[in-house]
């Protein structure tokens, strides 16, 4: 088990490193930040002076090595565009993003799981079909369309909810719906499929033959087994969730990390961009670890063999 974890850890570090390297090089190929910051043009001297100030005059390998040394000491550098520490930029914007992520996750679990269960248990009734229909639409409607439809209805037509900004809780309603709809649908669809599979399994028949109340047969025997693979799906959906939140932040003019990240790509603000990528890759790694750990908790078959 320890060897397995160590191997996995090593691979993760390697992955993060590779992702960073790719970003580092690709960003530098794609352009110099000062071309974008000063679009009326710079003289040779001005450009050279700026490059020197941020260490961009040295060869790329040298830049990369010193960057690695820097981040090893916990220093992620300053934003080229804003001349402030990168970490501060992200720290200021992380609030709304985390809040949106947490709300969306809560919504996903709180709505997706019951929806999937309903769809599975009541699959022959109108209720189950309706649940599946809701899940299906959520699955096939892209973030941006849902956002537009919501704004059209709730902001423009009904005038109930603010369409841009992230100041109050009201501002979070539509973004949360937008971001979680796809996940809710995915989880519901998946859980339904798993439940139907589990319900036809022998051990569920055994549970019924034991005369357990139906609530126990479903809640204790079936759901637990059906949830195991759902955890994996949640993990797999993480990347999509991040891409989705970038779109949601754009559409609802959210001052979150996504905006900072997209801005850094447009301006080739290398330190900001690199930090964003490292943070994302690390989050993916951590999420994968959590999924594995959770898996081991709910599935005893993994615990020993892993």
């Amino acid at each position, binding site marked *: 088990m320890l060897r397995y974890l160590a191997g996995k850890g090593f691979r993760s570090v390697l992955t993060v490193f590779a992702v960073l390297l790719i970003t580092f090089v690709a960003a530098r190929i794609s352009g110099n930040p000062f071309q974008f910051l000063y679009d009326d043009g710079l003289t040779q001297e001005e450009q050279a002076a700026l490059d020197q100030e941020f260490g961009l005059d040295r060869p790329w390998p040298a830049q990369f090595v010193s960057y690695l040394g820097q981040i090893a000491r916990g220093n992620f550098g300053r934003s080229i565009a804003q001349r402030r520490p990168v970490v501060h930029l992200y720290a200021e914007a992380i609030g709304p993003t985390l809040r949106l992520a947490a709300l969306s996750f809560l919504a996903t679990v709180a709505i997706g799981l019951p929806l999937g269960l309903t769809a599975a248990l009541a699959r*022959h009734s109108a209720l189950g079909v309706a649940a599946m229909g809701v899940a299906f639409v959520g699955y096939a409607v892209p973030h941006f369309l849902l956002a537009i439809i919501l704004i059209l209805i709730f902001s423009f037509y009904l005038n109930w909810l603010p369409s841009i900004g992230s100041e109050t809780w009201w501002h979070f309603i539509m973004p949360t719906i937008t971001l979680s709809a796809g996940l809710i649908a995915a989880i519901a669809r998946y859980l339904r499929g798993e439940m139907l599979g589990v*319900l*036809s*399994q*022998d*051990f*569920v*028949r*055994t*549970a*019924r*033959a*034991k*005369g*357990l*109340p*139906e609530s*126990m047969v479903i809640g*204790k*025997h079936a759901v*637990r*087994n059906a949830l*195991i693979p759902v955890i994996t799906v949640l993990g797999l959906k993480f990347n999509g969730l991040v891409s989705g939140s970038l779109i949601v932040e754009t559409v609802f003019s959210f001052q979150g990390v996504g905006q900072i990240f997209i801005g850094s790509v447009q301006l080739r603000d290398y330190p900001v961009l690199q930090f964003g990528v490292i943070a994302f890759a690390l989050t993916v790694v951590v999420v994968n670890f959590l999924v594995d750990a959770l898996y081991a908790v*709910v*599935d*005893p*078959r993994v615990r*020993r063999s892993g």
Partner: protein
Amino acid sequence: MTAPPLLQLRDLSVDFSTDMGIVHAVDRVSFDIGTDEIVALVGESGSGKSVIAQAIMGLLGVGGAGRNARTSGQLRFRGRDGAAIDLLTLDAEERRRLRGRDIGMVFQEPMTALNPVLTVGEQIAELLRVHAGLTRAQAAAEAVARLAEVGIAAPAERAKSYPHQMSGGMRQRVLIAIAMACQPLLLIADEPTTALDVTVQAQILELMRTLKRRTRMSVLFITHDFGIVAELADRVVVLYAGRMVEEGSATDIFASPRHPYTEGLLGAVPRLDLASDTIGAVAILPGTAPDPLAFPAGCRFHPRCTHARPGLCDGKAPAMTALAGARRFACHVRASA
């Protein structure tokens, strides 16, 4: 047999409506299961024997493929208070309370019949909590005792194991412990040894015999293997394509089978050292089991029967002919002979 029977099946029929049409899986089956008696229900796969088991358990109505099942007839069951009730008239909740407490069931597939994410101790204990109202601690202790009873070594440790850590034979013992946990009046065993290898099979059969002797419960043993029937059963009911074809004491049936189908099956008894039951059965009986969507008219066995007479056997279904010693069979040819 002086005591009144524990369970009386009267004209039990089960129809399934499927996409392809209606399947008459069980057609007017009537027999008794006496107190302290082992009845073997014998037939090929698709003969309706497992459907009968599920009908008795009341599992046809709940979930899965049973949703489209329609059951008719009577299942008169004498409960612990001695009063007979028709199981089919009970509501879902009353039936559930009978399940696991008064009627236990052991399934065919020990590898999949246990929940993979719960310890085996818990899978026994939950039953005791539900039916006997034991506390968590009492039930856990009792579960260990039940494991010991079915011959599992180091039961206290084993109770904490998960199914995947056990062998097939051990899991089948656990399933028997589950079925027996509340000391049921009737144990239904649906081919409990089919998936096991021969030595383990013998051990499990021995265990069931021992438990039966100790508790004096009745057993409905479902099998397609006359070798097991010979070892275990007091009485035998032979099914073909959803209908009863013969019934009698095990000794009588083995000594003089009346129905040609029974003869065929007996000819196909595997010797224990060979133990490849299905292969033998197919080799002796010509033809294949009929399509349940279109059972043959008349005697359902007639297309495969070497004694069949045109104009007689393909006309109407044969009635039961009763013989002395509670023997019955359904065959036009033999009844007139």
